[in-house]
């Protein structure tokens, strides 16, 4: 594929708002996970909640979009000068030439959960104030981003479970390659709700302690929330501004099981191989792998196998889920941006909460953060339905 530049990006997780706060926490091995106090789902677990996620309601013309998911998205859109960069792009290309391809797994379903608790006693009707299209429907997020950033190009929402916001890069890259738009907003948001907390609880894959990716005694996932966005466009002649490039994307399907990955890591390996092939790089040219690594028994083992088969015990890799928890549909963009920060700042991340790496694992798993020259990173995202996506990001030459 022709490389595309992430010419501006922004994010929010339980680690904080924006790139600097995120990098500080990653460097200091400070986890955002804390005992769960999310009132709609009082389960004994740890979550990575966004501070003050509920404190900034959307008002005025955006009031119809008001829900936790769009509020968290708004926090990311307002940080890191993202809005200004998009405004400049709007001047360069025209509002109708910038697409919006963002994703979420549950959008604002928390709003519908609340509406169901307030159903009319006689008719069963939902409260009149409930706005389905602008909160619950998965397109609500794309609609909100398009409205907030005053864009008029093509748009749709992607929802492929936990691979969602890695896959949005593929949707956007294709649209730009086809000339449907000149630039695109990619990314997305997923936020705490009863559906996912009780859902993962029912699958018995949620840990009661902070998640410990790749640990011999890992006991399942911690759920987190967050949002991230990037402005994706063709690299300009001013290479200084285009410091991180999207070089390759690999998508694959497991063809195995709805909620459990292929134990041999078949789909995971295919995704990484396709990303490498699309970018034209060999495994040895990759400096760091940000793993999916959710800390489930089966998932981590399958990913270790796929990584070890392709990269041996050479390439440093780690999961950052111990910092943020599993941000589900948002994990693709958040970890792609962690990877961008790795390239820009010369750091590879350790794995907070992981104590002893599973002795059966063969990949080169990092426990401590370290300084290193990082030119190219692979970021893995794997989801329900066997949806896999690997992104290959690199430094502009």
């Amino acid at each position, binding site marked *: 594929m022709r490389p595309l530049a992430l010419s501006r990006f922004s994010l929010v997780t339980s680690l904080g708002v924006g790139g600097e706060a995120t990098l500080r926490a990653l460097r200091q091995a400070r986890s955002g996970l804390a005992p769960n106090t999310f009132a709609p789902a009082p389960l004994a677990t740890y979550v990575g909640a966004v501070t003050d996620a509920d404190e900034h309601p959307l008002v005025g013309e955006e009031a119809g979009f008001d829900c936790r998911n769009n509020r968290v998205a708004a926090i990311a859109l307002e940080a890191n000068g993202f809005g200004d960069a998009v405004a400049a792009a709007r001047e360069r290309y025209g509002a*109708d030439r910038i697409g919006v391809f963002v994703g979420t*797994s549950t959008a604002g*379903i928390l709003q*519908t*959960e609340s509406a*169901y*608790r307030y*159903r009319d006693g006689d008719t*069963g*009707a*939902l409260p009149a104030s*409930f706005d*389905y*299209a602008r909160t619950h*429907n*998965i*397109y609500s997020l794309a*609609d909100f981003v*398009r409205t907030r950033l005053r864009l*008029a190009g*093509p*748009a*749709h*929402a*992607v*929802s*492929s*479970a936990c691979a969602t916001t890695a896959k949005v890069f*593929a*949707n956007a890259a*294709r*649209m730009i*390659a*086809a000339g*449907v738009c000149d630039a695109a907003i990619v990314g997305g948001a997923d936020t705490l709700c*009863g*559906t996912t907390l*009780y*859902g*993962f609880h*029912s*699958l*018995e894959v949620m840990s009661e302690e902070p998640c410990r990716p790749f640990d011999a005694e890992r006991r399942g996932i911690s759920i987190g929330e967050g949002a991230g966005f990037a402005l994706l466009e063709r690299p300009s002649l001013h290479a200084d501004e285009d410091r991180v490039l999207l070089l390759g994307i690999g*998508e*694959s*399907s*497991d*063809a*195995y*099981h*709805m*909620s459990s990955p292929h134990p041999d890591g*078949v789909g995971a390996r*295919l995704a990484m191989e*396709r990303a490498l092939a699309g970018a034209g790089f060999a495994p040895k040219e990759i400096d760091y792998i940000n793993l999916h690594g959710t800390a489930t028994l089966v998932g981590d083992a399958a990913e270790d196998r796929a990584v070890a088969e392709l990269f041996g015990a050479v390439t440093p890799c780690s999961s950052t889920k111990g910092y943020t928890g599993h941000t589900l549909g948002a994990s693709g963009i958040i970890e792609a941006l962690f990877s961008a920060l790795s390239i820009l700042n010369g750091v590879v991340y350790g794995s907070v909460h992981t104590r002893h790496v599973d002795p059966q694992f063969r990949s080169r798993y990092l426990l401590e953060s370290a300084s290193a020259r990082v030119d190219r990173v692979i970021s893995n995202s794997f*989801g*329900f*339905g*066997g*949806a896999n996506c690997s992104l290959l990001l690199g430094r502009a030459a």
Partner: protein
Amino acid sequence: MRVFVEGVAVRAPGLGGWPESRAVLAGIEAYRAAPAELPASPLPPAERRRTAPTVKLALALGIEAFAAAERDPAETASVFASSGGDGETIHQILVALASDERHLSPTRFHNSVHNAPAGYWSIATRSHAPSTSIGCHDATFAAGLLEAAVQALVEDRAVALVAYDAGYPEPLHSVRPIDALFGTALVLVPSMSPRSFAQLEIELRPQGSDFSTMAEPALESFRVGSPAGRSLPLLATLARDAADTVMLEYIPGLMLAVSVEPVSSAPARMPRRQDAAAGV
């Protein structure tokens, strides 16, 4: 941008497959109401028991379109487009979460994800090919068609579009009035192949003239009552084997103009389609 259609499928109440529905869609025969029928699922029995209506619908559509295209689904990328997942499954989860117990069924939870049909499709067809699951509220069909056409051209490969929605139960139906089950599938290729029978010239335009509609009231009710049903003007044009331009609803400010032109590189193709249309 220009792509070619190799296979097409349709399922809705009274529309049981493309060959059976062509004359109705073309306006030659009258529409007769009948319950939507879905063929047996190709999934293993253990998986089949656990699937939701949208999964059964999407699988039936994919199988029909791939059979018509005579193409191997295991080797073909796919785009699954739906307004918002399985309404009945989501309703059951919301009811459970509003109860004191708040206990969810793990199967129901994994069926609630938007890409459940794509996941089951990959299992049923043993496909490791890339797949994307998208949604765009009422603009979902046009968004799916745009995504599939772009993918066929940029990646230079066949792409299947499967667009589907099942009816929403109350109280969700009041806020998201999707009525009947409706679905369609198209297998698109970037260049003319022996099996392609129509050319689509797809263009994004500023929203201007009105969207294409259906003359037959029952079909028009499917068009407005289901985001996947927004495909009907395109299906009707394909069914007529006619050259025509349809205007499809897309997101506010934009619409999708699709110019259809029959192509006949496949001399063996027409007789078989007529046989099928006659129910032979």
